[in-house]
């Protein structure tokens, strides 16, 4: 397989609105055929970045390239990208078919071919037979499909989607997730997709960029974002996490030890950490990677085969239990006052009865589970 070709490049792009720096020196490359997600909290600059690519905003600094060509000053109607708006922006005075045909009509595509392509696009989004309807006779999900068809029928190099699922209810959103992913595979168009919903990004994207306050925090595959976050912000934003502040005590090439005043025992890691001596580090530990064991009545602490004794095992007391159906979340108070979240799947119908409130427990985790963060 040939190396994937870069289709979009942001080169040191910044956007200022008066004093507000909405996008701060973003450099980013997106390859052809990717399903790329831009993820971040509200107001972090995702929409602004997307609108600069679509041509509705001009970068204050930097350049944007599509297929190697600088398009920073190209008007929106001359760019090989199309957008699905958050509000869908379906023309209310046109039928579904006219909406989809609009982009082809202004391009001067002849009638017969236009009709064929509109038909095909409507089929693609499963709206065959809806061509004669007016948008106000459609449901929200159907309107969104019209917006999709209208953009896809132009065969863009890149399809931009600004929170396309946020206006749909939870069930429909989930259904549309897999449908969008399938659609992208079928048409092979590069999708650049904005969301503030991390589940959405993890479920659909082949690669994600996490933004915070206009800055690009990390660009990685969904599993790398989750398992190897590069900062406290990313670790905290993607999924839920326990963060412990501490100091590196041992740092060898094949293991490291962190001392945290928030935990009574040391944290042992099965890998070295580079470039962090003397400074503060943070250890990120996902709740589902912490095991829960019964304590008290003379029970010994659990033994972890990959970890020397006295590390990664902490005594505590269950303070809170949240039963979520498929899993339960336990808030465990450990010595020193810190509360640690752990998560346990309810593998059988009886599992949620194993532990109760105020029960003494051991928390334990493997040497490969924690991630050390330098910022």
């Amino acid at each position, binding site marked *: 397989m040939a190396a994937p070709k870069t289709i979009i490049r942001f080169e040191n792009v910044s956007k200022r609105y008066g004093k507000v720096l909405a996008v701060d020196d973003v450099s980013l490359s997106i390859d052809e055929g990717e399903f790329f997600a831009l993820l971040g909290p509200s107001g972090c600059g995702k929409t602004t970045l997307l609108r600069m690519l679509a041509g509705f905003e001009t970068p204050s600094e930097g350049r944007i390239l599509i297929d190697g060509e600088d398009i920073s000053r190209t008007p929106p*109607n001359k760019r090989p*990208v199309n957008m699905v708006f958050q509000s869908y*922006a379906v023309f209310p005075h046109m039928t579904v078919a006219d909406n989809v045909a609009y982009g082809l009509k*202004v391009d001067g595509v002849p009638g017969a071919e236009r009709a064929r392509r509109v038909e095909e696009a409507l089929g693609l989004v499963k709206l065959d037979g809806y061509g004669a309807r007016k948008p106000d006779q459609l449901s929200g999900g159907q309107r969104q499909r019209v917006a999709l068809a209208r953009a896809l029928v132009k065969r863009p190099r890149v399809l931009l989607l600004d929170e396309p699922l946020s206006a749909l209810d939870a069930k429909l959103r989930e259904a549309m997730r897999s449908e969008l992913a399938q659609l992208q595979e079928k048409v092979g168009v590069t999708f650049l997709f904005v969301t503030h919903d991390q589940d959405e990004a993890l479920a659909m994207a082949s690669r994600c960029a996490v933004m915070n306050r206009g800055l690009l925090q990390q660009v990685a595959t969904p599993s790398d974002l989750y398992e190897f976050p590069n900062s406290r912000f990313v670790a905290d934003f993607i999924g839920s996490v326990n963060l412990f502040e501490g100091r590196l005590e041992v740092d060898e090439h094949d293991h490291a030890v962190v001392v945290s005043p928030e935990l009574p025992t040391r944290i042992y890691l099965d890998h070295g950490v580079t470039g962090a001596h003397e400074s503060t580090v943070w250890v990120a530990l996902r709740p589902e990677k912490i095991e829960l064991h019964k304590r008290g009545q003379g029970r010994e602490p659990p033994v972890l085969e990959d970890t020397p004794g006295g590390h990664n095992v902490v005594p505590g007391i269950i303070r809170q239990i949240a039963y979520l159906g498929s899993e339960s979340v336990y808030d465990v108070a450990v010595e020193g006052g810190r509360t640690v979240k752990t998560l346990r799947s309810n593998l059988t119908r009886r599992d949620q009865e194993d532990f109760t409130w105020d029960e003494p427990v051991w928390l334990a985790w493997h040497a490969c589970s924690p991630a050390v963060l330098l910022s």
Partner: protein
Amino acid sequence: MDESWKKAKGVFAALGAPPVLWLLAFFLVPLAIIWGYSFGENKSLTEIAVDGTFRNYLHAVRPLYLGIILKSFWFAALTTLFCLVVGFPVAIAITFASDKAKSWLLLLIMLPFWTNLLIRTYALMAVLRTEGYINFTLAFLWNGVSHLTALFGHPLGPFQPLELLHNNFAVVFGLVYVQLPFMVLPLYAALDRLDRSLLEASLDLGAGHFTTFRRVVVPLAMPGIVSGILVTLIPSVGAYLTPDLLGGPSSQMIANVIERQFKTANDWPFGAALSFLLMYMTFLAIAVQAIVSRNRRGRER
């Protein structure tokens, strides 16, 4: 909420009765009296006998008066057209102005309402008359150019002031000036409601600004355009002061003729017939418009 309001009949009656009575006593009844007069004839200087004659209407549809009515519609149509052409860009500019500029621009549009129409019309006369400042400016430029050409031995000769007042041009110009705010405000209201992302979607799909205007802005602003046209056209047809002050002998509009019947000619029945003829024609025009637009909507469904 809606329901409970509808149930409060007493409140409705209490709130609704005074304006209804007012309209009845001071608008509909006098209108009916005049309507009655249109079927009557003068018996003496002060006495009118309503005897159901159609003589006044027959009189009114003679070519002389019909011509003036048609001319009134023609002037009104021109006025409306110019207001639309001038007002649309103004409304667009206001819509897309920053919030702060927007309120100032709207204030500017409404500012003329704070001044009496008579004063505004006289002010316009000061602009347009032969010694007015349009001609003054033109004369200044003319003389400047004349000095230049004189250097090459070809002076332009003395400046002939343009006749801008007391003609058809002055009437339509004045009407456009008076009616423009009535066109701009409904247009602005319609454009302001327009979802901006629709315009962006059109651009995004490859349409230029002009295509976006034609295919998206105009159709969606249609209700505003229609009401702008109506509130400009109807008062223009019956305009009185503007043609009276700015017009010449051949640019009288129907309202001036009607005024003469009631005042100098003291022929109230004929004046009433002319008034109502105008009203019937206006209603007819609105009815046709309503039917056409209903049919169009029906077809679109």
